[in-house]
């Protein structure tokens, strides 16, 4: 038999049941029951959550690694740039030190006018101790002008083009410079050699020269101005019956590491050729 209740009665009955269940739940009657039901749900939820976090970590970590790698690449590039900058700054510092020393030399010798020049090459032949500088006749350079460094004499201009010049160093085998020894004031001739050494020749036998004595240009011969430091005597060779003594000289300029030089532009070398008589002249 099918008994049908009115709809309103069903609603009231269901409401009462719901209220009753709610009242029972609030009073704690269902607590053990709910723990029994909720516990596996929590466990499953925990497991699902952990798996999700694992996946999430994996995804975010790979993204982080990509970011870290990108940052690393950028930092490496930055590091390379900084290294290059450091090298450039160190080079500038060296140049600055050289230029400061050259300026000091120019201040200490105000009787001359100077032009700074960079050494851009060396003679391709190992037989010649020549350097090539980046200043030429456009800058006022002329053949015969002396070339110095912050330490002292380096050589003289032997050939000039519009934008460059060739400088014969004092170590060149053909070099002959009139010098004097201080403090004895002995006159002598300085010669270069194929070995790159410089020696002092034609020192009068009676003159008192010793290791440590300074060598300065004497100005005789008209090829170099006087009183420019050339080097220092390291050893003296004297034979009993010889007319002259000779000596080894340590140059003040380091010719293996020349990078910037000064050209003395207000010095005119004296040309003695017109004074030399022709061979046919009586």
């Amino acid at each position, binding site marked *: 038999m099918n008994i049908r209740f009115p709809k309103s009665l069903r609603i009231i009955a269901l409401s009462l049941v719901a209220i009753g269940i709610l009242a029972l739940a609030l009073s704690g009657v269902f607590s053990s029951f709910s723990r029994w039901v909720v516990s596996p749900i929590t466990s499953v939820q925990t497991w699902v959550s952990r798996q999700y976090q694992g996946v999430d970590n994996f995804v975010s970590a790979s993204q982080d690694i990509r970011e870290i790698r990108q940052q690393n690449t950028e930092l490496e590039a930055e590091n390379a740039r900084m290294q290059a900058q450091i090298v450039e700054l160190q080079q500038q510092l060296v140049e600055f030190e050289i230029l400061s020393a050259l300026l000091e030399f120019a201040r200490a010798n105000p009787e001359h006018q100077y032009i700074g020049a960079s050494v*851009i090459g060396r*003679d*391709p*032949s*190992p*037989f*010649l101790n020549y350097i090539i500088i980046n200043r030429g006749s456009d800058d006022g350079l002329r053949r015969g002008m002396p070339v110095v460094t912050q330490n002292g004499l380096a050589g003289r201009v032997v050939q000039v083009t519009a934008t460059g010049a060739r400088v014969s160093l004092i170590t060149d085998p053909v070099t002959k410079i009139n010098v004097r020894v201080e403090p004895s004031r002995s006159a002598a001739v300085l010669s270069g*050699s*194929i070995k790159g050494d410089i020696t002092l020749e034609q020192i009068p036998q009676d003159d008192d020269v010793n290791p440590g004595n300074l060598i300065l240009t004497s100005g005789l011969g008209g090829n170099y101005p006087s009183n420019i430091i050339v080097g220092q005597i390291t050893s003296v060779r004297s034979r009993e019956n010889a007319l002259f003594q000779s000596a080894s000289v340590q140059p003040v300029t380091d010719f293996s590491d020349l990078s910037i030089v000064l050209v003395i532009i207000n010095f005119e070398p004296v040309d003695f050729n017109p004074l030399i008589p022709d061979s046919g002249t009586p």
Partner: protein
Amino acid sequence: MSVILSIPTLGLIAILQSAVVSRLPLNRGTADLMLVVLVAIALQKTVSTSWQWSIVGGLFMDYLSGLPFGIFTVSYLLATGLALIIRERIWRFSFLMQLLVVFFGTMFSHALSFLVLFLQGSEIMLGTVLQVVTLPSIILNFMISLPIFILTQDILEQVNPQE
């Protein structure tokens, strides 16, 4: 191989020689990069313009050097002539031929330089020159010969495969 190509190529080599190679001496000797390159070119069977390359290279070096004009050109022409004789006579030459020609090329060049400077009145002794200039130069030239020989061979194959 085009002679026009020789002007920028050998010009660059001459600049390298003056700006870099000449600053790296062994005792008083320096490597002759131009000589080694010209010999390596002359020894390649595919090259028919070795003489012209030698003249261009020699002129560049004569321009840069303070030695009397022509010494480098004559030296390089002699070395090229020797290289071409070897190339004609020997069916299969090797890297040793490069060393042989570089040796004699360096000797030609230094003998000429010595002779001219001696006649000009330079106080240079033959024994000292051989000891402090020529022998170290030959050693340096030998050292750079192998890489330049291989590089020249590769470049020529790339640049001019049809010759």
